[in-house]
């Protein structure tokens, strides 16, 4: 079923088995229209059949829920299925999440432009439509039972997959699904009151956990298709580089295991029977690349360009200020370093293109595949696999274009897998940023002047080169400014702005995006201000949270959880940071000690989050832990550098990440507020770098204003001995 249109959708009859399908057309929660699909009594639907509705109930009573967000570790398959199961009133063990195909009705209401997993919006975005889908399916089942028993609907109840008659009779959802699918859905449904939730708010075990302990889930690299062959790829090392010459192409093509050598402008791929053979043949190719006439920057030049942009812009005059900061903070380019290298599997025919891909961006992947295949987008089917890490890297479509291009040439299903070094060196990097702060305290130690000018390449401008420059002059780099624009501490005159600088380096969305650096900048600057004012860092922050009740609640909870004011063992020091991102507020305290040899021991980390209404507290905790560890990797050692336009790092030895011995116990407390969920997946990352930097200052009197910490000689980290 490669074709989809609304008309087609409405008229569609059974193509995948018996049962009730509830579909939400539209995708915007305020305009949801539900339709029941009629089904012929065929065998149960097959796994590979695309779900076009949100909910499918089989005659056996099993429930499938279409999940439009990608499962990249955040537990979204289970959490979104929970929303449906809650309203449908069904045993969660009978519910199976199924990746949704690309279709308008699955667009994320909180992400413009289609199906995309990003911006920590999955639970927040699908919170309303998926509960409505569950409630609609339940309403139809009740109606079907009422008709069967000839009673009114309000005499009936449901209980865990069954409809109950007042006299004790029961009908299972499976028995009713066929009849329910013939009925007209209600125009609106009443959702449960949170007080009666049975699943939402509970630490419900994830359905993907048991198979993940057995190595069973199909990640992108695990896709197998009949007649499939394997491709390995090498890019021109420099970003602006091109393939100039392939010296021994004919000789390599003659190898019996090699099916094709494909030369594109910026890369060369070898297709072979097995991936290892393809990679070995690729290694044997003599390739000549060139960057002639195009920019090939190095990191040292790029720094000068950023600094020059700030100097050209000029400084504010802080004359007359008694206590002021006038300084720069700085972060480098970063790679996502997903555990699974980039990969994609494609099969292209004259009229169809199937793509099996670990992607965060189904809609964009479909467009990229259609363009590469020379087909219409409705001839393209995107099959989302499990993602071996995403963090923003898999919202790109470079690997989709490549796999489809190769598959079109060889006319067979092809699985393309990049090596680790290709993955490290041809990423979509978190921008390098230099951020200048000129901040002055008034008589009452309030920052009455807050000037923050940032020089950085603009991610969105890089992605949308057609947007003219004057637009950016008006709006600023609003993504890069995320988290810097409105700090709670700027109580007087304020000017926060960006200078867009093209550094000729590919850019991408990296976990927490603008917040990833602005959390570090702002929360370190505030700590410097507290020091300047001679105040306690927690008490100083609290003074500015009167109009920020969620910040205040998080800080107070953190104060209690970490026992901030209690004496610590000799040599132990604390650092604190609080940052709002993606609609949530997260605060962290770090306790560390530093040896004379600059070995840093992390003793414990405390973390408090207010993420609105909590769907699954255990997955929230997992994400807090994950974001802290991810942020620590970046803060302590993460740095992508360029030489002659190419990335110098290649794998985990020169782009290292945290390992077991470095991670201390992490204590987490979740606060709730409001009646709908806010972001989780990215929100614990921004505070960790400043919390550590602030603790390092208290331990060493050294202010580290440039990440990573390894640059300042703090290159050895370990966890404290007490894990209880």
């Amino acid at each position: 079923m490669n074709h989809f249109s609304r008309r087609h959708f409405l008229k569609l009859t059974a193509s995948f088995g018996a049962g009730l399908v509830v579909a939400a057309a539209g995708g915007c929660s305020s305009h949801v229209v539900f339709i029941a699909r009629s089904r012929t009594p065929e065998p149960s639907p097959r796994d590979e059949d695309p779900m076009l509705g949100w909910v499918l109930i089989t005659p056996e009573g099993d429930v499938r829920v279409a999940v439009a967000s990608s499962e990249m570790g955040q537990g979204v398959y289970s959490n979104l299925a929970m929303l449906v199961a809650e309203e449908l009133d069904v045993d969660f063990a009978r519910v199976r999440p199924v990746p949704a195909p690309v279709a308008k009705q699955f667009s994320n209401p909180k992400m413009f432009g289609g199906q995309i997993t990003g911006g920590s919006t999955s639970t927040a975005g699908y919170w309303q439509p998926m509960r409505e889908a569950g409630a609609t399916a339940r309403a139809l089942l009740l109606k079907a039972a009422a008709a069967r028993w000839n009673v009114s609907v309000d005499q009936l109840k449901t209980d865990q997959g069954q409809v109950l008659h007042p006299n004790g009779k029961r009908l299972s959802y499976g028995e009713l699904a066929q009849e329910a699918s013939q009925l007209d859905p209600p125009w609106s449904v009443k959702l449960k009151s949170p007080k009666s939730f049975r699943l939402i708010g509970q630490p419900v075990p994830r359905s993907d956990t048991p198979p993940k302990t057995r190595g069973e889930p199909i990640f992108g690299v695990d896709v197998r298709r009949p007649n499939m062959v394997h491709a390995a790829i090498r890019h021109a090392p420099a970003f602006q580089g091109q393939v100039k010459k392939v010296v021994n192409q004919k000789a390599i093509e003659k190898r019996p295991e090699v099916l094709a050598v494909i030369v594109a402008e910026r890369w060369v791929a070898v297709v072979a029977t097995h991936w290892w053979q393809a990679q070995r043949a690729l290694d044997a190719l003599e390739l000549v690349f060139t960057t002639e006439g195009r920019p090939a920057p190095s990191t040292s030049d790029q720094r000068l360009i950023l600094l020059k942009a700030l100097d050209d812009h000029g400084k504010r005059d802080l004359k007359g200020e008694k206590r002021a900061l006038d300084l720069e903070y700085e972060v480098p380019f970063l790679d996502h370093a997903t555990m699974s290298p980039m990969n994609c599997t494609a099969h292209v025919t004259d009229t169809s293109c199937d793509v099996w891909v670990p992607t965060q961006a189904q809609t964009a992947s479909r467009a990229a595949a259609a363009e590469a295949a020379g087909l219409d987008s409705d001839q393209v089917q995107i099959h989302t696999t499990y993602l071996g890490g995403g963090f923003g890297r898999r919202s790109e479509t470079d690997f989709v274009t490549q796999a489809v291009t190769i598959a079109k040439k060889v006319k067979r299903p092809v699985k393309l897998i990049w090596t680790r070094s290709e993955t490290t060196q041809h990423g979509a990097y978190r921008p390098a940023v230099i951020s200048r702060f000129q901040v002055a305290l008034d008589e009452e130690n309030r920052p009455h002047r807050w000037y923050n000018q940032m020089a950085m390449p603009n991610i969105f401008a890089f992605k949308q080169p057609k947007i003219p420059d004057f637009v950016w002059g008006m709006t600023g780099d609003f993504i890069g400014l995320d988290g810097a624009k409105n700090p709670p501490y700027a109580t007087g005159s304020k000017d926060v702005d960006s200078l867009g600088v093209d550094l000729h380096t590919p850019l991408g969305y990296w976990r927490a995006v603008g917040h990833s650096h602005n959390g570090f900048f702002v929360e370190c600057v505030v700590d410097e201000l507290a020091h300047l004012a001679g105040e306690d860092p927690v008490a100083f922050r609290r003074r500015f949270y009167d109009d920020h009740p969620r910040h205040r609640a998080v800080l107070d909870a953190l104060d209690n959880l970490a026992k901030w004011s209690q004496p610590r063992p000799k040599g132990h020091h604390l650092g604190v940071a609080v940052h709002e991102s993606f609609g949530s507020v997260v605060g962290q305290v770090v306790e560390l000690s530093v040896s004379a040899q600059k070995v840093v021991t992390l003793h414990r980390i405390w973390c408090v989050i207010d993420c609105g209404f909590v769907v699954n507290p255990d997955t929230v905790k997992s994400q807090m832990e994950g974001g802290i560890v991810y942020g620590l990797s970046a803060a302590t050692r993460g740095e992508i550098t360029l030489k002659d336009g190419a990335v110098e790092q290649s794998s985990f030895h020169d782009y290292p990440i945290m390992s077991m011995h470095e991670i201390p116990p992490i204590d987490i407390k979740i606060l709730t507020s409001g009646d709908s969920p806010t972001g989780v997946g990215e929100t614990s990352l921004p505070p960790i770098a400043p919390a550590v930097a602030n603790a390092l200052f208290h331990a060493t009197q050294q202010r580290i204003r440039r990440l990573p910490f390894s640059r300042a000689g703090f290159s050895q980290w370990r966890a404290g001995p007490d894990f209880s």
Partner: protein
Amino acid sequence: MKLKFTLNGEATSVEADGEMPILWLLRDVLALQGTKFGCGMGQCGACTVHLEGQAMRSCVVPCQVLEGRSLTTIEGLGSGRLHPLQEAWIAEEVPQCGYCQPGQIMAAAALLAREPNPTDAMISEQMTNLCRCGTYPRIRRGIHRAAKALRDEKP
């Protein structure tokens, strides 16, 4: 070359280029895909398997060394039921993306076979597999839980 070895307890015979790393023999020739490709340089441990009971990073070991030996992968770890580590991983909800977890479990199983009651220091020192999702605190708890379950099992 013709390779004969024991794979997850069963006699196996396969035709393969002896230089092909064990990882790719498993994944592309034998269709056992629980063992993952992470770096191809023996750095991350996503490809960890047991050769003669010892944890080994299969991406850098040519498959010819398998001749006459015994190899265990995540698919063969439990021998008919889940290994206590897999049960502990479920109880602690360890995995996030899950990509590194087969390797983590294989590394942890080798650790528990050597040391039934590992201290935190031993876990820190010997669990060197990388996890980009940051599941380390839960892996640590999972190992302790499985170690206790294994000790309790014994009379």
